């Protein structure tokens, strides 16, 4: 009898059930999408924050002091030590290599062009490298996304160069022209605008700078751009004072400090340091945005819970006549309440399932249109979402069911209420 009542209730009141079902589906869809976005937004924003450039700097361990003023290197090239270019691909072998977005070596060399003393900077633009069986590309186009080139980027294996835009205006050079550096002609493939010291420099593939300096395989500095976790108390501790267990936890967390530690392990005779301007602020901005999205998600959950409750309450309130009839025919309060609760649960499960799928699609759309990246939702969330949907539907119906059951059947049947 109970099952028949249930079945007929769904069969005969399609419109009403559909309305409540739509409310639950929408509520669950919004909640799912918001949870998916909120859990993923940290990851996405931290990728966007990489547009600030490298957050780690690797230098030779026994280096003399840098003599840099306004981005111009005054250090004589004979001074100091160098990193080995051959060691660079080893970065891909570190524990957190998936978090390393890219790296770019730098080799500044002093040169004389048309009687002027200039800095020539050798680097990778978009260099293909191999580590083990893995191929990857890296260079300034990844680590310095604000560098803009008018013309074309030089090929890393070519002799082509970029000329900073201020320097190009001063010397009257254009893309396609030739420039003589150290007696050798080089083709200018493009003009570089960086908003920094590079605007007055010549930027070449690393190999060209090494030839001019006469030191093959030498690198002065290495900029590394890595995805990191905001710093906390553990991150700031000195690894030397940790016990083995704590050290493992520190080593296996993508803190900027532990990535620096691993870079030093990977590259012999090197010293890696976080660039505090980028690394420190990244953590604050990231935690602010994550906190904001978390609070907004709470608001979304609250709004969808209320919408579901309101729809359920309205749906039940309209059925007082039915309740009156059941009671007049001898239905117990428990049986009637059970009927409504089972109905609500069925609605919540169906609506929750459809809403979950809808929410996943919604989250994907948001990810694609805003971040041009996938926001995927963990299927583990499905039972959690379903449980939430059932809970909210129950809570929303409970009050209305209690009122409906307590209502005097005589009044209900007379249609007064």
């Amino acid at each position, binding site marked *: 009898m109970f099952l028949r009542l249930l079945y007929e209730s769904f069969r005969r009141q399609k419109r009403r059930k559909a*309305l409540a079902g739509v*409310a639950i589906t*929408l*509520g669950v869809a*919004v909640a799912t*999408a*918001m949870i998916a*976005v909120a859990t993923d937004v940290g990851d*996405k*924003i931290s990728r*966007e924050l990489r*547009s*600030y*450039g490298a957050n*780690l*700097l690797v230098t030779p361990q026994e280096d003399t*002091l*840098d*003599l*840099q*003023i306004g981005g111009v290197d005054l250090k004589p090239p004979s001074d100091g030590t160098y990193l080995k270019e051959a060691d660079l691909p080893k970065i891909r072998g570190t524990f957190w290599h998936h978090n390393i977005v890219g790296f770019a070596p730098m080799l500044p060399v002093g040169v004389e062009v048309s009687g002027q003393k200039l800095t020539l900077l050798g680097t990778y633009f978009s260099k293909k490298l191999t580590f083990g069986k893995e191929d990857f590309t890296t260079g300034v186009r990844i680590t*310095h*996304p*604000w560098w803009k080139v008018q013309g074309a980027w030089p090929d890393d294996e070519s002799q082509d160069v970029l000329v900073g835009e201020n320097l190009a205006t001063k010397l009257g050079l254009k893309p396609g022209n030739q420039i003589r550096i150290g007696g050798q002609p080089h083709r200018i493939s493009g003009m570089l605008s960086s*908003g*920094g010291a590079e*605007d007055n420099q010549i930027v070449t593939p690393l190999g060209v700078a090494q030839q001019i300096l006469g030191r093959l395989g030498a690198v002065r500095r290495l900029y590394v751009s890595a995805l990191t976790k905001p710093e906390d108390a553990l991150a700031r501790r000195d690894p030397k004072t940790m016990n083995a267990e704590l050290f493992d936890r520190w080593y296996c967390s993508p803190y900027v400090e532990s990535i620096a530690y691993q870079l030093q392990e990977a590259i012999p005779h090197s010293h890696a*340091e*976080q*660039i*505090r*301007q980028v690394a420190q*602020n990244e953590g*604050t*901005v990231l935690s*602010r*945005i994550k*906190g*904001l*999205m978390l*609070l*907004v998600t709470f*608001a*979304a959950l*609250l*709004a*969808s819970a*209320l*919408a579901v409750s*309101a*729809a359920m*309450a*309205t*749906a039940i*309130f*309209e059925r007082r006549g039915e309740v009156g009839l059941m009671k007049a025919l001898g239905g117990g309060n428990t049986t009637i309440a059970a009927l409504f609760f089972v109905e609500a649960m069925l609605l919540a499960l169906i609506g929750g399932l459809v809403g979950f799928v809808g929410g996943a699609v*919604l989250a994907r759309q*948001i990810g694609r249109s*805003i971040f041009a990246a996938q926001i995927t939702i963990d299927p583990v969330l499905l039972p959690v979402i379903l449980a939430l949907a059932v809970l909210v539907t129950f809570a929303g119906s409970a009050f209305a069911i209690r009122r409906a059951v307590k209502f005097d059947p005589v009044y209900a049947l007379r*249609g007064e209420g």
Partner: protein
Amino acid sequence: MSPIATRRAGAPHTSMFLRMLLRAAVLRRGRAASALLAMVVAAATATAMLNLYVDVQAKLRKEFRNYGANIVVVGKDGAALPDGLLNAVHAILNGRGLAVPFAYVVARTSDGQSVVVAGTDFQQVRKLNSWWSVSGWPQASRDALVGTRAAAVVSSQGKPFDLGFQGRIIHVNAAGRLSTGAAEDSRIYVSLADFENWTSVQPSTIEIAASGSPEEVNSVITRLTNALPAAEIRPVRQIMEGEARVLGKTRATLLASASLIILTAALCVLSTLMGWVLDRRRDFAIMKALGASEQLISSFFAAEAGVLGAIGAIVGFLIGIGVAAWIGRVNFHAPVVPRFNVLAWVLLGSIVVALISAVLPISLLRRVQPAVILRGE
């Protein structure tokens, strides 16, 4: 005619209309209250979301200013900046940002090593470059801030040391260590007054952190370029582009979330109010049976919904402002400023949603004969 009747003869419709509105709310407290509650919650979430959306830009911009200077002023071709330039920059900034002068020379340590020494204003640089990790800021004259790498060369135990430039020697105390992970680590910073006394070199760079939107920063750049022909003004693209990108994405995500939430809240109101109106089909039928025109009944229900929407919007607005302020305090450690122009939108939206949810069921009921409703079918 009795005095009461005379008095009533003038405005029977309005007073009856008002009375019906009032009694409807008083007699059906429960339903009216739940409809109002839905309205308030929806208006509050909408207000909080809109307020956050408008204000989050300003809040995050403040965080982004911690990245340091977004404009750099240097002398043309590496020359020193003319006198009084800093004052001109301050006049253009007009308090909306920081401007910090830097002067640089390459000096010699007592054992003949080269080191970059910079003169600057410590008070200002502390505010500009908040990421500098400093063990102790210089207080007195002849105190120096020594970069970690420079410290290994000049004063590994924090002892006072000598610096020479063009034959002139300055004796300084190492007041603190500076660590930034960049070129600053190899430098020694002294106060600008000490620096100028010692080297007679004028500042060559002014770093500016101008606050505000990209348009405001660009207008500062234009004004600086026009006012200071002797200097080269360049935006720090790394900072400006990164900021624009992250801010844009955050705003877009927030907008998507806000639209979803407001949509859900509007649906909640719609279903509650529709239930409320449908529930009162007997009132509707009685009014109709007593000879009220359809227009009058519709306007009665519409007025009721409109009043409910307006009250809900105003109460919800106040609560929403509170919620936004709380979120601001928890997340940004600064309250979100209430935007009262949001009120107009919330009010308008609430009333429109309320009207839709009143008029929709009425047009459904209109087709039904009052007798059918009154019989309870």
